[in-house]
């Protein structure tokens, strides 16, 4: 990895650490995951296309590293399928006019707890959405079609709203 690319890659360390931390749930594991991500990026630097989004490329490596080396060893709070079924259940409580007020009053710890209660897939797509990646870039990170990103994000956010309602009571 040449010097300029390495410098730019280092600039994304906070964003990678954030995703790693929310994926692993543990600081020490997040640190290892970030280091391994950069090691793989250095080894595979030839695979990066100049002019494309470096952060998205690093996110993709981090996610794949997490899946291949770590995910199978940890029990997720819930599998992604549970988040999917949340969509139907969400309809009823969405009619609650108090939701907007509740969302605005949530504190950081409540939001974090709700986020961590989601599946890893749902957490990932919600966090990537916050990183200002385009849907195309998110699809590249998640290695799925753009349409899947949209539906996955919608379901994840609906599931998150449901969790946040519980925390805001």
């Amino acid at each position: 990895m040449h010097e300029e690319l390495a410098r730019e890659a280092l600039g994304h360390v906070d964003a990678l650490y954030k995703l790693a931390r929310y994926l692993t749930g543990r600081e020490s594991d997040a640190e290892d995951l970030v280091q391994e991500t950069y090691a793989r990026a250095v080894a595979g630097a030839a695979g990066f296309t100049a002019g494309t989004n470096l952060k998205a490329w690093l996110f993709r490596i981090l996610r794949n590293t997490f899946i291949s080396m770590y995910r199978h060893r940890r029990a997720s709070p819930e599998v992604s399928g549970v988040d999917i079924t949340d969509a139907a259940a969400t309809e009823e409580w969405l009619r609650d006019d108090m939701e907007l007020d509740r969302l605005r009053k949530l504190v950081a710890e409540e939001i974090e707890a709700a986020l961590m209660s989601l599946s890893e897939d749902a957490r990932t797509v919600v966090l990537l959405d916050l990183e200002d990646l385009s849907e195309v870039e998110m699809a590249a990170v998640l290695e799925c079609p753009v349409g899947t990103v949209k539906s996955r994000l919608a379901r994840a956010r609906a599931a998150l709203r449901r969790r946040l309602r519980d925390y805001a009571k």
Partner: protein
Amino acid sequence: MSEPHDERAIDVALTEALHRLPHRPAPARVVRRVERVLAPAPPGPSPGWRWHWARVLVPTLAAAAAVALATPVVVYQYNAATRAAGATMITEAIGDHLRIVQAQRPLEIESGDGHRVRPWFEGRLEFSPVLPFAGDNDVPLRGGALAWFLDRKAAAFVYGLRLHTVTLFVFRPEGLPWPTAGWQRAGASEVYRAGERGYTVILWRAHGLGYALVSDADPREVVQLASRFGGA
């Protein structure tokens, strides 16, 4: 009473709530670890570099014609050659380790049982690799694969150390450019330790075989781990 239900307003409020997540930048130790990984490998001496020094040193030495001056130069050249020899094996070990980490296909023998992994190499190598550590709960054996170490076949035993991969290469030791200095006595063995690009490599010889242990885990952990392999 809040304002009427508004999907778009709620969506915005949800995004705003997410932006209130605690901001926790990567700790300084993580940044240092990443910087080590990103650091370029130190360049080896090029022919031009050697020619430059030859042009500078040779006339000086000739003019001085003193043994007292010649001796340090001999030592310097010896050390440079030693470093170059060691660097070849260190670079090879890291490259081989990365090829295993980066491989898209699974290990050729995937098992946490050393009694299954070691026999798998029978007939695939011209020597019988001695597995000095069969793994445990902290450092589980993941499996093994055939590898090439410079000009020869090697056995690669792959372990996990949390999220890190640890690779132990076992190979015939004859005729390799082993470092000729810088070895340290550690228990019953002599080991050569080096760090490059965030990786720690430990070389040693035992049982008539050569060993190279490689990982990007914390160097102190790798050194501790080497002692369990009999390499420190």
